[in-house]
């Protein structure tokens, strides 16, 4: 790596001569090499989906969650350093509950995303701190505006509002797949399946590596309450996804 050895990558407080902060870039690297995470803003809600790579075959299914509930109508998923991600989730929950206490209404998604971005960004400003090695995708619903929205906070502290977003190992492929979807008409029910297809499709060649698919929704049919999908729903989505992928592969073979 060009940066190592130059001395400009030892602290997030140091800019390199060409204006980069290597420590922040390294943090983003740890996100880029971990499980794929995608978020979709569908016509009637949000879908979050996450590929959880299992380090050990003896882990109990459903443990070490990467998709968490922040408040009644907001959920977040992260990828990267799991323990760093959990720290951000914890902060998100604190922000949500303190906002409700102060103002008497649930925190608006834009405000929550903004405050989390401030929190994450703070860790890129001090020599005594290191940036978070995790990206966070937020799916929230705001009753006052009657709108569900999707945000992603990156290790640099940047935050954007998305129709569809992806992070982790398969993000490039995921983004091209998401762009092919018609998100203005796609329902959450279909979105869950598409999300399963995209995440499964982008798995590494060593497909026998143990993994668990986590999906959650903030959907109109559940009154926009954030809910992790039932095991049966995920299993069905995965089955559908595998069929789709096989079909596609068969078609490609026919063309050859």
């Amino acid at each position, binding site marked *: 790596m060009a940066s190592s050895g130059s001395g400009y990558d030892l602290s997030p407080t140091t800019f390199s001569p060409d204006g980069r902060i290597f420590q922040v870039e390294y943090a983003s690297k740890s996100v880029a090499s971990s499980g794929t995470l995608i978020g979709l803003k569908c016509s009637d809600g949000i879908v979050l989906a996450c590929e959880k790579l299992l380090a050990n075959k003896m882990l109990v299914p459903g443990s070490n969650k990467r998709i968490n509930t922040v408040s009644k109508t907001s959920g977040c998923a992260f990828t990267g350093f799991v323990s760093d991600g959990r720290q951000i989730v914890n902060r998100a929950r604190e922000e949500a509950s303190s906002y409700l206490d*102060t*103002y008497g*209404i649930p925190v*608006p998604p834009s*405000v929550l995303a903004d405050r989390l971005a401030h929190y994450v960004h703070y860790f890129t400003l001090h020599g005594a701190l290191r940036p978070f090695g995790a990206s966070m995708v937020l799916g929230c619903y705001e009753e006052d505006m009657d709108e569900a929205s999707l945000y992603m906070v990156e290790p640099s502290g940047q935050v954007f509002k998305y129709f569809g977003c992806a992070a982790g190992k398969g993000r490039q492929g995921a983004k091209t797949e998401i762009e092919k979807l018609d998100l203005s008409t796609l329902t959450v029910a279909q979105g869950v399946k598409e999300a399963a297809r995209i995440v499964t499709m982008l798995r590494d060649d060593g497909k026998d590596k143990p993994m668990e698919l986590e999906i959650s929704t903030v959907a109109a049919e559940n009154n926009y309450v954030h809910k992790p999908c039932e095991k049966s729903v995920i299993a069905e989505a995965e089955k559908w996804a595998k069929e789709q992928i096989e079909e596609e592969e068969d078609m490609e073979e026919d063309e050859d």
Partner: protein
Amino acid sequence: MASLLHPSQTSNPYNLKPGEVSSGTTIMAVPFKGGVVLGADSRVSTGTYVANRASDKIAQLTENIFCCRSGSAADTQALTDYVKFYLQQWEVESGRPATVKVAAHLMRKICYQNKDNLSAGVIVAGWDPVSKGQVYNIPLGGTCIEMKCAIGGSGSTYIYGLTDALYKENMGKQETLDFVKKSISHAMARDGSSGGIIRTCVVTEDGVEREYIPGNKLPYGP
């Protein structure tokens, strides 16, 4: 010895300190289909002395949220200043106009947290695009209740029966305004610490209309 009576039943309902200026007061707010009407008398007294006979007890919190003040003038002025400040911050952070609900919640929170040191009974009312016209009553202890017709201040005790009898569902703007003016006139006639003129404020989607009725033109009587 401390009185066993509820503060509202003693001759010093707001437990004011000697020399403290009170807004004696009759205040009222009623929502209607397109907005909300607020009304207040204008007398400010120190004991039996009228310190100001044409004061304004309707404070503006944001563009479209107002607040009727009763109790200690100093306390309620400080309170509205705080709430105004917090609402400005809220509007900057959220990028949209504050809702009446948020304003009432902030007011309640400060009133409740400082209940031992405050003598303030306020009515927060206004219009917002989310829930339209709303009225929240926040009396002495710091409860916050959304109401279809809120009255407050020492003069309000004289008009509970009147407002119960005159209130109707689905009143129009002019009808609500007349109802408020009439009720406050009757309170001012009976309550020694309410008087002067009536100030009213109508908040709708189209904006704010403020007016007053001089003391010799009050709609008192049948």
